[in-house]
């Protein structure tokens, strides 16, 4: 199972899809087609693609507000994700959620949540249900390093470890929570050590390298499935853009030089380079892939644009179940 080779071409395709999709989303935001908060995942694509690629399709995914990458990596339809960003009835959350709240029950994609750390107990609860029902599914819970000091994080991890719940806690450490670098928010610089307080095994993975993410996550996920014990993974990664659309990419709390330095390890370019060198893909195939993705992204915008707004009844329709 762990010997299976990573589907690298597919990973390249997914990472490029996430990147181009979000570049287009940024454009649409600037045009006022997308509103509210919109947090881009550009630079961090290897984490979602590698980790979700290592999971089974029926394993559960729970994430925070920077959720476009996880949604696309899980196979949510790009056009329905874009429609959600546009607030249309055809969106994955019927236009009710927007950028921060993508959901797809059919794909066990359990949502993006906007309260920092608030989804970690929820993910733990899904793990509890898996144990209760004697199911084999594992929960992948993604969050930023900004969640790690929070009470929700510690309470949930203690319960998961105490009760041996099948949850993989994946900290996407992109070094910044808004304008605060990790050195100024966490007493532990080595975030993964937070797991020690809960007697939970932990791993570091290179979040800029999709192969490392995939290989390690494969082992971790199958380990959790077999042992029924939670594991903590810290993926060290980097966000190129501002925290959200209103926050500049650099200037106030970090320098352009720092970002440029990080871009040298760009997850997409490094994988692409490697595949080209090993002749596993040709430059023509890369261009073809880019063109196909371009079409998907353009179609998604067209679909979103043409889709209807939700009907007024939707305002109260989903509040209570009937």
């Amino acid at each position, binding site marked *: 199972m762990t010997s299976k080779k990573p589907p690298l071409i597919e990973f390249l395709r997914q990472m490029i899809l996430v990147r181009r999709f979000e570049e287009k989303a940024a454009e649409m935001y600037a045009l006022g087609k997308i*509103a*509210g*908060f919109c947090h881009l995942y550009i630079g961090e694509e290897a984490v979602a693609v590698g980790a979700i690629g290592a999971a089974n399709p029926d394993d559960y995914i729970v994430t925070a507000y920077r959720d476009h990458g996880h949604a696309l990596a899980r196979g949510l339809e790009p056009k329905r994700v874009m429609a*959600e960003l546009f*607030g*249309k*009835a055809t969106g994955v*959350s019927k*236009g*009710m*959620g*927007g*950028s*921060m*709240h993508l959901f797809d029950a059919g794909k066990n994609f359990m949502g993006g*949540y*906007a*309260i*920092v*750390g*608030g989804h970690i107990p929820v993910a733990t609860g899904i793990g509890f249900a898996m144990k209760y029902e004697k199911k084999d599914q594992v929960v992948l819970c993604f969050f930023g390093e*900004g*969640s790690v*000091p*929070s*009470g*929700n994080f510690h309470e949930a991890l203690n319960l998961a470890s105490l009760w041996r719940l099948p949850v993989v806690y994946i900290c996407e450490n992109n070094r910044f*929570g*808004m*304008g*605060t670098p990790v050195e*100024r*928010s*966490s007493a532990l610089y080595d975030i993964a050590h937070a797991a020690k307080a809960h007697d939970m095994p932990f791993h570091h993975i290179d979040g800029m390298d999709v192969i490392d993410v995939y290989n390690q996550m494969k082992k971790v996920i199958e380990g959790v499935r077999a042992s029924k014990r939670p594991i903590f993974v810290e993926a060290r990664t980097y966000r190129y853009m501002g925290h959200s659309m209103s926050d500049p990419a650099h200037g*106030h*709390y970090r320098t352009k030089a720092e970002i440029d330095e990080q871009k040298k390890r760009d997850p997409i370019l490094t994988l692409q380079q490697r595949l080209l060198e090993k002749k596993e893909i040709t430059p023509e195939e890369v261009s073809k892939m880019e063109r196909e993705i371009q079409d998907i992204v353009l179609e998604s915008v067209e679909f979103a644009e043409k889709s209807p*707004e*939700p009907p*007024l009844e*939707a*305002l*109260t329709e989903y*509040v209570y179940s009937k």
Partner: protein
Amino acid sequence: MAHIAYRDALGQAMSEEMRRDDKIFLMGEEVGFYQGAFKVSRGMLEEFGPMRVIDTPITEAGFTGVGIGAAMVGLRPIIEMMTFNFSILAMDQIINNAAKIRSMSGGQFTVPLVVRGPGGSAARLAAQHSQSLESLYCHIAGLKVIAPSVPKDAKGLLKSAIRDENPVICFEAQALYGTMGEVPEGEYTIPIGVADVKREGKDVTLIAWSKMLLMCLRTAEELAKQGIDAEVVDPRTLRPLDMETILNSVRKTNRVVIVEEAWPYAGVSAEIADRITHEALDILDAPVERVTGVDAPIPYAKNLEQAALPSPEKIIHAVKKVMYLE
């Protein structure tokens, strides 16, 4: 008088108070180095240094509790919630500790704490980021709750809150931060518990606070064009509530519409309506009307967000209802 933004009026209140009393400090996420998520504390780190303008990790319960402990032994903390949606994580500290310590210690300890930050809906921030939570805090004995609507009130009321010996919750509507207004030069405060008549009128009393107050003022102009002269009363502080000013207005107009951005169920407007009916039933010409948000989480979609919130049209409809014009 200076013409300044709401956010700067709040910043001035904090800075002036911190210059006056070195026991006062500001604590919260991104308040220092980043200059405040909404730039209310711009320049304060530079002036007061990192012991008095304190950046915290994302730990609302933790740093609010730290503020409460510090307040018990003589400091005067101002806790900034990046938005009130996140104060929900600190509610245990605010409700079970801050609001109760004075009472349960038989008056031995006081908690002179201010918890402030933006609330309410802005532009399509979806359900978890659009909430108006005033009523949750108004429900709690031991807390005071203020909700200024214009820069002048924001500065004067926040100063009073900082000087108050009790925990005070200060709601600042996110959508108001950029709004401008006249602010007097020199030292002034506005007492907690005193309402303000923002527009005189004789036909109907509109009661609203914060962002809704501005909506009511605009709507009053629209009503004037239709020959209806609305008086607009701004309670400014929601707990304690200045019933005196409200009842004086009702005595003039005999008709009341209360406008509240939050949900209808157990809302502040329900409290005000109840008090008016009990204290002034004989002078009312119509049942008190409430215009509130729709009883649902606020959705992301543009059309639904608009439909979820009070609007001038809904206010006009309610006014016509109490005047039996519809």
